[in-house]
């Protein structure tokens, strides 16, 4: 961790007895005791937005987990799909495969812990400028997605603290022609996130480019990670859909 990163609070579980101050890039969080069983929550984010909440608590202490979450909430929750546009295109010749690491944007969630359950309290993004929407397809039939232009990462350790996690993408071209891949679009809602200190890794995906009848399609499935990093609580209610098909263009 570099010197500048070390001034920020790492992901993890925090106990609040009287006051807790969490520092994130351009964001400050403060939790203070208001009375015997009540706490106040204050957040000022990078866009100058201020959020204040009161948290009644059953016990005299408050437990809070700060963890990376999927980048679906800023500026508003509108979709469960993400559109990752690679900064460099990847060429796959016929019947070949590639395994790449890419940076994937994240947001940061705050969860209240009680009875070993995590209740979503608040979320922030440390990189609001790059939290935007994009459309996959045409305006009349396309799919609205969260959009991010992402760069290739070297390995899982290449995560950009608080801003981008690392995801492994396996792309397999079973077609009998070469293809250039410049983007992937998939529902990220079922991919789990894992954290250690201030770094994040995300469940990978496997993209199989294949032919169905006369149409070339890309079948996308989740590749769950096996890691000893801490798994983030889920902000969204997960759905049963675990794969997606997209056209190749």
């Amino acid at each position, binding site marked *: 961790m570099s010197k500048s990163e070390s001034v920020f609070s790492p992901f993890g579980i925090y106990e609040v007895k009287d006051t807790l101050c969490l520092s994130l890039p351009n964001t400050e969080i403060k939790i203070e005791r208001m009375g015997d069983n009540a706490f106040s929550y204050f957040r000022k984010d990078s866009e100058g937005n201020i959020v204040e909440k009161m948290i009644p608590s059953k016990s005299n202490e408050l437990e809070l987990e700060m963890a990376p979450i999927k980048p679906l909430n800023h500026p508003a929750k509108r979709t469960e799909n993400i559109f990752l546009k690679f900064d460099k295109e990847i060429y796959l010749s016929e019947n070949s495969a590639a395994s790449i690491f890419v940076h994937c944007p994240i947001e940061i969630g705050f969860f209240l812990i009680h009875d070993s359950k995590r209740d979503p309290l608040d979320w922030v993004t440390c990189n609001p*400028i790059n939290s935007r929407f*994009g459309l996959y397809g045409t305006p009349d039939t396309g799919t609205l997605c969260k959009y991010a232009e992402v760069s290739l990462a070297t390995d899982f350790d290449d995560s950009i603290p608080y801003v981008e996690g690392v995801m492994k993408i396996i792309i397999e071209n079973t077609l009998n022609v070469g293809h250039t891949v410049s983007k992937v679009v998939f529902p990220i809602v079922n991919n789990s996130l894992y954290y250690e200190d201030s770094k994040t890794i995300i469940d990978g995906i496997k993209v199989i480019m294949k032919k169905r009848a006369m149409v070339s399609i890309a079948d996308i499935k989740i590749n769950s990670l096996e890691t000893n990093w801490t798994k983030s609580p889920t902000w969204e209610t997960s759905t049963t859909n675990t794969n997606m098909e997209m056209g190749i263009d």
Partner: protein
Amino acid sequence: MPLEFLQSLSEMQIVGELTVLSLLVGGLIMAVGLVVAKIVKILFYKYYAPTLPKDTAQNLSKIIYFGIIIISFLAFTSSQGIDLSGLLVAGGIFAVVIGFATQSVVSNLISGVFLMLEKPAKHGDTIQIPDMNISGTLLDIGTFSSKIRKFDGTIIRIPNEKFFTTNIRSLTSSAVRRADVTVGISYKDDIEHAISVIKEEIQISMPFVLCVPEPEFRVEELGDSSVNIQVLVWHPRDDWSQAQPILLTTIKRALDKSGIEIPFPQRVIWGAKD
């Protein structure tokens, strides 16, 4: 004692064989029918409606509700020994008269049925009716009329006949919508530079504007006083208020920051010398 009271009621004839007791029984059947219809409607809304599309749920609930009431009415008439065939004959005689009198009612009813079948818009859709200058959220396509909640919060009722025959513009049928404005810059300013600063400001300060398709810029006109540039941006369909109303403000801020002039109409007058 109660039996004697009922006996006396059964002997009190109103018209023909119609007695006070039979009328009471009939009333009881209708009342029970109404209560059952209400209860079934409530249970339907509580347990089944949430799993169905809103418009289908509303139509089904109406069918169930009025179906039970019609069955109760038939039970009521048969309990009174009323022969409906006579009523049908009488109805036949008056059908033509009633037909003329209720022409618009029937027209609305049939239009309502066609609207339910065709479904030009769903409940909750944001629609616009350009011919009537109405925009708002479609609340209900009813038997005789449809209701729209306008953006000012008022509800407008439109007879189904008019609703069926008018043009309906759906604003929520696709995932995204486009907002556009036109802005003029002075002739002395560089067009490419102006476009670049506007694009940058939109990217920074309008989070609901889509990156793909990216904002589009068209030099629309070389006007009398300015070069007019049309700016077109896409946004999620429900976030019109985060795009169209603030687009001009954003553009003006970008141009002001860069010192690019938005000219007011001006005329150069040349004075001829003697």
